[in-house]
């Protein structure tokens, strides 16, 4: 199970490893299970320990963005390496997912 932490209406998900078509399905199910808690309004995806991501990961993130948008919530990201930031920009994710500075998500 993916590591996560709840803080009020915020859920931080600590992603790790490689996010591709093979791993994205499982991750999608795990995050959706965590989002079963209807109080959660802010989803923070921590990419600090993600070594690789391709378009399958982008699809998984857009899917969670839709889940959060339906409940009037938001998704943000932190800990991205330059290659991931480039992928985010190419996919247009930077327009719908705010980037937080490291540690910012730990604030109350």
């Amino acid at each position: 199970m993916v590591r996560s932490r709840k803080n009020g209406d915020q859920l931080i998900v600590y992603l790790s490893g490689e996010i591709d078509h093979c791993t994205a399905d499982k991750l999608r199910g795990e995050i959706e299970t965590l989002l079963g808690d209807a109080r959660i309004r802010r989803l923070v995806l921590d990419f600090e320990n993600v070594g690789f991501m391709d378009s399958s990961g982008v699809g998984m993130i857009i899917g969670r963005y839709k889940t959060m948008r339906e409940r009037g919530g938001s998704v943000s990201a932190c800990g991205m390496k330059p290659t991931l930031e480039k992928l985010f920009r190419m996919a247009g994710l930077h327009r719908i997912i705010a980037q937080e500075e490291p540690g910012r998500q730990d604030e109350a």
Partner: protein
Amino acid sequence: MNNQMELSFLSLAENEAFARMVISAFLMQLSPTMSLISEVRTAVSEAVTNAVVHAYAGRTDGRIFLRASLDAQKVEIEVEDFGCGIADVAKAMTPFYTSQPDQERTGMGFSLMLSFMDGVHVTSAPGSGTLVKMTKLLHEEDVDAV
């Protein structure tokens, strides 16, 4: 330096990571930058994922070929399958087009290959499979050992 490799593996999702590892290992002889490795392995990941997801569509007994060659100027990579083929290659390469929108697919696979590589050429015919040829030009800042 001139070198070549060829590998074949089954159309299992687990082999997407395997193909990335293999192409990364093959490129190590160039002492490449992280950026070069990252771009090439993303392109390979997208091409192999297309073969697993679309060409063989859930079949795990399909055969995928990964070939690579390098010299001082460029790296050439081929990903070939003998799956269902693509009826309209131009349409398949249109950014954000996907034949499986309900699967959270982005339709960005070919776009990323085109963005990260210097050339992408797709040959395909329904029923006979797909060959994706990609070229990455090497610049002095990309490598130490060309």
